[in-house]
């Protein structure tokens, strides 16, 4: 990369995630306003990463919003790791908000399984409206895959994600979109369009090595910052998500 371009890139304001390992990988955090796909199969830590991202933001006085599609908020909160740094006051003060997307569907009068092109756009406008109204700086949509299931067609999914990403970026809101993938790890998202439209892709996975199953994390794409593309091993703890480099000296099954 030419030095001028590199300097311009390094000047972009960062959204410091507060997850030390990820900020280190990204050379200081996610470029502010980026839309990042957090992609992986079940049980790999996607939701924990996203919730920590929001709590850390709220602690730094950045209003944060979690949009839950599949799991009701109260059930989700019960299952989330009891983080040492979590303070219930954040919810009471409105700095950390949780909202069930089905309630938004209900408000908008969307009762069909399949969302039309217009309904997709209406959903984006509603989410962006919430961001504006509540001065949200960090947003998580868990999961984008569930919304995409209802949009069904690639063209509608593309429009939804593109519009959402652009409008959130214009509001300086940094967003994480959760994408559920299968176990084969061939694609970063179910439809393949999500990763192309996102500014960044963080992939979580399970790596089997000689019978041990390790949780891994890898940043494969992040516009606006140089970053490590190496694979890391992660642990979900009450102190938050911890990361260490994946050791390369051993034999690794599956060429991972």
């Amino acid at each position: 990369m030419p030095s001028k371009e590199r300097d311009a890139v390094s000047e972009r304001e960062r959204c410091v995630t507060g997850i030390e390992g990820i900020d280190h990988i990204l050379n200081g955090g996610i470029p502010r306003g980026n839309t990042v796909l957090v992609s992986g199969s079940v049980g790999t830590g996607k939701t924990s990463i996203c919730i920590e991202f929001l709590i850390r933001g709220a602690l730094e006085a950045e209003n944060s919003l979690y949009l839950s599609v599949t799991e009701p908020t109260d059930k989700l909160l019960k299952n989330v790791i009891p983080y040492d740094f979590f303070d219930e006051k954040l919810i009471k003060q409105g700095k950390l908000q949780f909202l069930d997307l089905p309630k938004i569907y209900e408000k908008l009068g969307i009762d069909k399984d399949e969302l039309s092109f217009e309904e997709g756009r209406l959903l984006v406008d509603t989410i962006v409206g919430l961001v504006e109204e509540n001065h949200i700086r960090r947003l998580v949509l868990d999961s984008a895959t569930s919304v995409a299931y209802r949009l069904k067609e690639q063209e509608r999914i593309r429009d939804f994600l593109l519009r959402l990403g652009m409008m959130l970026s214009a509001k300086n809101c940094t967003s994480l979109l959760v994408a559920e993938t299968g176990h084969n790890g061939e694609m970063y998202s179910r439809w393949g369009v999500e990763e192309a439209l996102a500014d960044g892709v963080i992939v979580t996975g399970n790596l089997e090595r000689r019978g041990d199953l390790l949780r891994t994390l890898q940043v494969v794409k992040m516009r606006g910052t140089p970053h490590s593309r190496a694979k890391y091993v992660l642990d979900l703890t009450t102190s938050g998500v911890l990361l260490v480099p994946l050791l390369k000296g051993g034999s690794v099954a599956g060429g991972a």
Partner: protein
Amino acid sequence: MTVATEISDQLLRLPEASAVALRLKSEQYFDAIQGMLDLFAAKKDLNVIYITSTVPSQSIINALEVLEVPMDHIWFIDCISQIMMSTEKRHAHAISVESPTMLENLMLKVEFVLRKNPDRNALVVLDSINSLAIHNNTKILSEFLHILVNNLRSRGAYSVIFSMQEYETDEIRNMLVLVSDEILELSES
């Protein structure tokens, strides 16, 4: 001079952030643990993170209880009890890692304990390089030691790596030379 006081004295002479390989004979094992945990760590007000892959943490805790060593500032990362399918009750200060082959998880648990207890500097004991070498090849073990020791060094923590002389190989000796600032041996007692 006893083994316990000798090791404590030798460690006290070293600057903070030192990485030490401690070459032990089997009969010196428990005395060395006492010297580090009871004498050295107590004198320096250190938190101790004891990684055990040799004997289950509960065996060491039992020995410490007999010696009346307080456990308040000692934590164990135990990567042997689980693999032994041990049904023993786990101490509140013992964290389990599934297998001694999960070296990254050992590093993660060390990081976790360090974060939970930031009030004091730490002494991290690795017991032992020989037992880890049973389960891991030299390449991955060297990589693990290199990352772990340098990470601890950057935080000002002491690291002590046990090596049982009876089970040392040339590869293990080379590894210890590579990562350690000092290689200590105790006198015949």
